[in-house]
C-alpha cells in the first residue's frame, strides 16, 4: 500500500507521523521487515557533515550614500569575493583566500583563513570588514568603500552551494614514497593511511539511490536552518556503476542547495583548513525521505556493509586522471579502523563527522515531530540513471 507525501504531511500535522533516523531504520527493518516498515514508518531522516568545497554565500549589502557599483573584486576580511553581479551583490566562495596568503610557496601551506572562515564568522554574527573599489559612473559615483558589515544589517544573505552532498566518494591513499597533502588531508607514503569522506548509511543520497523522492524543491536541513535542493549539483553523474541494490560504487549524484543564511548557525557551517591544499567549508545537510512504499523502506534501510567505495591513489591515478582504483571497500570495513590493500593493513580515518551527521538526522526528526518541518514533493526530478547523463572530463581545443 503506497503513501503520498501529502498523506504523510497530514500525519505530521496530526502529530501521528512515525519518523526514524536512517540508523534507526536499519534496526527497524531488520526486526520487522520492509513490508511492515513501509506501512508503519512515514519518514526517514538522513544527515551528513563534511567539507564541501563548492559552497558559497551571496549577500546584498544595501546601497551606500552616495551609491557605489561594486566591480571586480571586493574583500571580506581580506578574502577576495566576486562582484561581477549587480551594484550591491557579492558572492564569496568558500575556497577563496586573501591575496597575501602565501599559498603553497612553502609546502605544505597552512591555509589558516579563507572564504569558509569568513562565512562561519559572518553567520555567527561577527562584524566582517568590507573593502571595495569601483570605477565610478554617473549613477554610481562613489569609488571607495571600507567598513564593517553584519549579517543582521545586510538585505539578503543566502547560502548557495552548487555541489554538495556527494552521494558517495573516493577513499584516498598514497602509494608513493613521500607524504602528500591533499583535500583528503595528509596521506602517508606507501599506503600509510586511507581517508574517506561520507556519512555512509546516514548520507542523504545513499538512502534514495535513484533520486525517487529527492528532487528540485526538496526542503532540507541546511547549515542549521531550512534550505532547499535548487538543482542537481555540478558534476552530477547518475550513470555511475551501481551495485544490485542500486547504490553507486563511486561518486555519482550531487545536489545544488540554497537557503537563508540568516537562519543558519556556525556549528553547521565550519571553515576548515586543509594543509597543503586550501580552505573549505564543512556543511551540515539533512534530507527527509518519505517512505512512500516498500522500495523506499528497503532503500532507507541500507547499511554500511552494503555501500562500497573505490580506493584511489592520490599520488598518481587521481592527479593524472587515470581511471584506476586500487581496491574496493565497504563503509563497514572503513569504519572498522583498518582496511586491507595489497595485503597490507592500512589504518582509516574520516573527514566527514559521523557524530554531527547523527545529530543532524536527530534534529530533523525532532523538527518533523514538532510540526516545524513538512515534507515536499519535488517540483521536478533530478536526472537518474535512465537519463544517460554522464560526468565528462575537460574537452578543450588548442588555440591556433
Amino acid at each position, binding site marked *: 500500500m503506497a503513501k503520498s507525501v501529502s498523506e504523510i504531511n497530514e500525519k505530521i500535522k496530526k502529530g501521528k507521523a512515525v519518523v526514524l533516523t536512517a540508523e534507526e531504520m536499519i534496526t527497524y527493518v531488520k526486526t520487522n521487515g520492509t513490508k511492515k516498515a513501509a506501512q508503519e514508518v512515514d519518514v526517514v531522516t538522513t544527515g551528513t557533515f563534511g567539507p564541501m568545497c563548492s559552497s558559497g554565500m551571496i549577500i546584498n549589502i544595501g546601497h551606500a550614500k552616495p551609491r557605489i557599483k561594486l566591480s571586480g573584486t571586493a574583500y571580506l576580511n581580506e578574502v577576495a569575493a566576486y562582484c561581477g553581479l549587480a551594484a550591491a551583490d557579492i558572492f564569496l566562495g568558500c575556497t577563496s583566500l586573501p591575496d597575501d596568503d602565501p599559498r603553497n610557496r612553502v609546502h605544505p601551506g597552512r591555509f589558516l583563513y579563507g572564504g569558509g572562515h569568513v562565512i562561519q564568522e559572518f553567520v555567527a554574527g561577527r562584524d566582517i570588514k568590507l573593502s571595495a573599489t569601483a570605477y565610478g559612473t554617473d549613477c554610481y559615483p562613489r569609488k571607495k568603500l571600507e567598513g564593517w558589515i553584519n549579517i543582521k544589517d545586510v538585505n539578503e544573505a543566502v547560502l548557495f552551494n552548487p555541489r554538495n552532498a556527494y552521494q558517495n566518494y573516493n577513499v584516498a591513499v598514497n602509494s608513493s614514497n613521500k607524504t602528500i597533502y591533499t583535500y583528503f*588531508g595528509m596521506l602517508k607514503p606507501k599506503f600509510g593511511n586511507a581517508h574517506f569522506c561520507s556519512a555512509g548509511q546516514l548520507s542523504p543520497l545513499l538512502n534514495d539511490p535513484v533520486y525517487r523522492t529527492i528532487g528540485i524543491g526538496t526542503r532540507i536541513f541546511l547549515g542549521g536552518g531550512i534550505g532547499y535542493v535548487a538543482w542537481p549539483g555540478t558534476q552530477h553523474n547518475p550513470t555511475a556503476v551501481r551495485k544490485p541494490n542500486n547504490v553507486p560504487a563511486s561518486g555519482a549524484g550531487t545536489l545544488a542547495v540554497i537557503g537563508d543564511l540568516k537562519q543558519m548557525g556556525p556549528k553547521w557551517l*565550519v571553515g576548515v*583548513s586543509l*594543509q597543503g591544499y586550501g580552505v573549505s567549508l564543512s556543511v551540515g545537510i539533512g534530507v527527509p525521505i518519505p517512505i512512500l512504499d516498500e522500495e523506499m523502506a528497503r532503500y532507507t534501510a541500507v547499511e554500511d556493509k552494503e555501500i562500497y567505495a573505490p580506493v584511489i591513489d592520490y599520488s598518481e591515478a587521481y592527479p593524472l586522471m587515470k581511471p584506476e582504483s586500487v581496491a574496493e571497500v565497504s563503509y563497514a570495513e572503513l*569504519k572498522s*579502523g583498518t582496511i586491507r590493500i595489497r595485503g597490507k593493513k592500512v589504518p582509516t580515518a574520516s*573527514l566527514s*563527522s*559521523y*557524530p554531527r551527521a547523527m545529530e543532524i538526522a536527530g534534529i530533523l526528526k525532532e523538527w518533523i515531530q514538532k510540526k516545524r518541518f513538512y515534507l515536499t514533493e519535488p517540483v521536478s526530478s533530478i536526472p537518474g540513471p535512465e537519463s544517460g547523463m554522464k560526468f565528462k572530463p575537460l574537452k578543450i581545443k588548442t588555440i591556433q
Partner: protein
Amino acid sequence: MISKRIVLKFPHRLVEQPIIYNLVKKYNLEFSILKASVTPREEGLLVLGLKGRDRDFQKGVEYLTKMGVHVQPLSQDVIRNESKCTHCGVCVTICPAGALVLDPATREVKFLSDKCIACELCVPACPPRAMEVHF
C-alpha cells in the same frame, strides 16, 4: 613506579646547568626527551617522559622546582578546543602515539592526553584547527 610526561621551562641562568644529568644521577629517574628547544632569549623548553619510583619522582620534581625550573604536566599544554572539534576523526591516523582515538560506539574522537608526546602533528592536520599547543 610512576611514569609521567612533564614540560620544563628553564630560565636563562639554568640553560647550561646539568639538570637532566642530576635527575638520573641523584634521583635515579629514567628519562626520554620528547622535545627540546631554546628560544631566542635563551629560555629552555624541555618536554620529558620521566619514569622511576614514586618517591624519587617527587624528589626529582622538588629538585627541579628548587633550581628554578617551571614544571607542569604535559596535559596542560596540549589541549583540544572542544568548541572547535567536529569529531570528524581525520586526526586518528596522523597521531603516532595513539593519543587520538575513535570511540567505536559513538564515533567521537577521544583525546588521551596522557599518551600525547607533543609532536604537534595533529595541529596542522586538524581541519577546524581544534588542537592547540600552549608551550
